[in-house]
């Protein structure tokens, strides 16, 4: 059974055909070739597949593709504006939070969902968000550092705008 769905992804309107057993990650990686979103486990444990859907961090590996209908979706490819990195990307790149980089897209998207809606997120909220992601390389400390720098950059950006 195929079904046609339409949605906005990274600011572009797209219309695709899906099978009923497809998950969001299948559409993103295999139909749209947006390979920045990663698959690291079989059962929604590792967090590498996290994207932002209607402003919320969502595990794309266990979200049915039909949920994309009418949604506004953001993946890691949609954050930078041309050559200009999003503050979260900049902070994560500079804090030492990137080693192998396989968990990075999911973590960046998790932070995006949190900090863009709640720039004043508490340390507990940050830590609850990051605790949903596995990283085997960094010992997490540089990821925390990056998240805190990102939060600072986002706050500064808001002050500049105000």
């Amino acid at each position: 059974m195929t079904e046609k769905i339409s949605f906005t992804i990274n600011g572009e309107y797209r219309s695709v055909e899906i099978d009923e057993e497809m998950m969001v990650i299948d559409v993103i990686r295999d139909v749209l070739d947006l390979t920045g979103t990663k698959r690291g486990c079989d059962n929604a444990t590792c967090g590498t597949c996290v994207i932002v859907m209607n402003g919320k961090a969502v595990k794309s590996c266990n979200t049915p593709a039909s949920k994309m209908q009418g949604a506004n979706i953001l993946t890691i490819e949609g954050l930078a504006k041309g050559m200009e990195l999003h503050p979260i990307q900049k902070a994560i790149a500079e804090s030492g939070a990137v080693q192998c980089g396989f968990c990075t897209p999911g973590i960046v998207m998790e932070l995006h969902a949190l900090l863009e809606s709640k720039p004043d997120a508490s340390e507990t909220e940050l830590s609850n968000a990051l605790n949903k992601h596995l990283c085997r390389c960094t010992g997490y400390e540089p990821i925390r550092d990056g998240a805190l720098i990102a939060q600072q950059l986002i706050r500064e950006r808001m002050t500049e705008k105000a």
Partner: protein
Amino acid sequence: MAYKYLGKSYIRPDAINKVTGKAVFLDDIRLPGMLHAAILRPKYAHARILSIDTSEAEKCPGVVKVVTGKGCTYRYGDNIRDLVPMAIDKVRHIGEPVAAVIADTPRHAYAALDKIKVEYDPLPVYIDARQAMSEDAVLIHEELGEYWHLPTLNPKPGTNIANVYHLKKGRGEEGFEEADVIIEGEFNYPFGSCAALEPHGSIVWFKEDRTIEIWSSSICPFIIRDDIAHSYGVPVSDVRVHIPDIGGCFGYKSDITVEQTIAWIASFVPGRPVKWVASRKEDITSTLLAHGIRTVMKIGAKRDGKLVALKTTVYHSGGAYSDTAVNVTIAATHNSTGPYEFEHCDLTGYTVYTNTPPVGAFRGYGHPEPQFATERMMDMLARKLNMDPFELRRKNYLREGSTNSLGERMWKSNGDMQACAERVQQIVFGKPKEKQEDDQFYYGRGFAALMKSPKGAPFSTKGCYMKMNIDGSVSVNMGGAEVGQGLRTVVRQIAAEALKIPPEKVRCYNEIDTQFSPYEWQTIGSMFTMQGGRAIVRAAEKLIQGLKKTAAQVLRTDEDYLEYDGEYVYLRSDPSIRVPVTQLARGYITDNGITIGDLAQSVADARLPRYSNPDQNGQGNLGVTYTFGAQAAEIRIEKKTGRIYVDHFASVFDVGQVINPIQIRGTVLGGVLMGLGAALYEEVKFDEEGRILNPHYFQYHIPTYKEAPQQTIEFIETPDPIGAFGARGIGEHPVIGVPPAILNAIYDAIGVDFYEIPVTPEKIKQALEARTEKEYA
């Protein structure tokens, strides 16, 4: 020593691609006409295959071909050629490939897998080495005597023993006659998984022009190239292996593993690339496992604490194929001394065939497992001698003038073990413990010292190609696999320092391609910075020499009168007589267009100097370089739950020279957390039939954000004579001391000795209950 570009935290060149999602990992590669494979795993961990019926699977939608091991005539392996790409008449472990479906999509391939019917005749299953060593054990490899193996290995045909390694130093076991005190213990470091976030995978393409093209998430492209060429009888130059970005390795993506299986599958559909990527379950059940090492240890000492004799027996459950385990066993055996000098050693390591997936490299490569025993035993010995454990260790550390088990003499330039230990002691034990317990918790502190050498090989060289461009920028091309350790940053900084140009002017390779990359054995053993770094320095020296040679013609003088500063080659006696390097890069073009001199490019490589095979005593120049370190844990044990919280962890290593502070801290942070996982959570569990009970992240728990301790990390810099600018290896070392430090802290907290890891809350609660019973008995 002060360097211009070393010791500074430059951002890694691959960070931007990784935060924008543009880094290309194996599963991100799409090729025209690409097919997908799914692999059938057996129902039994040890069984004869009676029949395989693929007829139903062949009729499924999208299926192009169904493949079995029938007709496979070759075996492969780098150390013992005992591996088959797909089971032929027998399965030896639960993750072994039995058959495969090639289809247009992964979904179609997996759907057809269920339709393959296999009949088995089950055989007895052995999980632990000592079960498989029993006299009446069924042979896992009846053909062991026929396998090609390295001349340094010693398999025992007619048994399940794949290799025995023995080392004798001094009087061996007779040395215990000189001991006043003897202690013994048995320790277990169970099976683990590297569990990198990116599962292993490969793409293989047998092309119509008779070349074979391969992509793999592996750190040994040249081994894959050579091995596949050998198996398929084609010239090595006709096999081309690409290595894209790798999402973590930690050991199990070294050596040739899944690539031969995917090649076998792809060989049935020539002309079409075939991709296979492990599910998480397959990553744990069918690629390399880790550890599986029992260490039986006996230490003899004088009354004053001077160590005299060590007897170690390493029982390594090597899995169904031992090609990848044999060298881990050897490393575990001769490194079981830890960072101490014993005058007499009697060390034996058995690599034993068992019915688990093959066991191979894990960060630390045979060092964490026996040194877990050594470091626990040092604390126990100190108690027995009624001696301060720091004093006991200090008396026996390897230092200038002492010799290790291999008979290698230690020099000052090997690093300062004692300085590392003293610093950690100061950080963690510098002030008295605040409290032993309160209503909720017991408190403990524990220490461990450690050492690690690489596990080299005679041909373990690393190459470097370097070329200077017409704007003076430099491209560096190497065969080192970037798994996250940050070697591209290291390449950039070392090349910048050696060439006296800013790192921004050095661009280093992204992917490895055996057609264009210089040879590298494998990116293993924490050797890239020191060995690869030396190759860079050598290449830079050659390149500078080449520039001088051309400049000597331009300036009409002799090469040895010239100096180089990164921008110019100039006359030492009169620096105003000079030529810019930008005019030398393609040779020097004179006014009338006649060009003289050579392209500014160079080739170099570096290996461990005088690395050798073991002699008849198992000794020799097998270590060559050492990194020493010390670690300590401060923990809390929750009385109600038995849960262990690591509040603070300290590490100090003598790394010779810090190249990049933010990266080296990252290496230690991650390594310590990995060691913490081993100490408290991680064990790949088997049932009696050889099935893996926890092949998923939600079952095989790796440490999470909230479980990461606060860490203090420092470095001592005693320059190394081999490594570039004095740097030595650090990649694996941070894992080694973590379990013994934590278990020593557990003893400090509750007075209970643990001999195996992981120490789970259940084990703590049992121990506390047993302790209470004893008190009231």
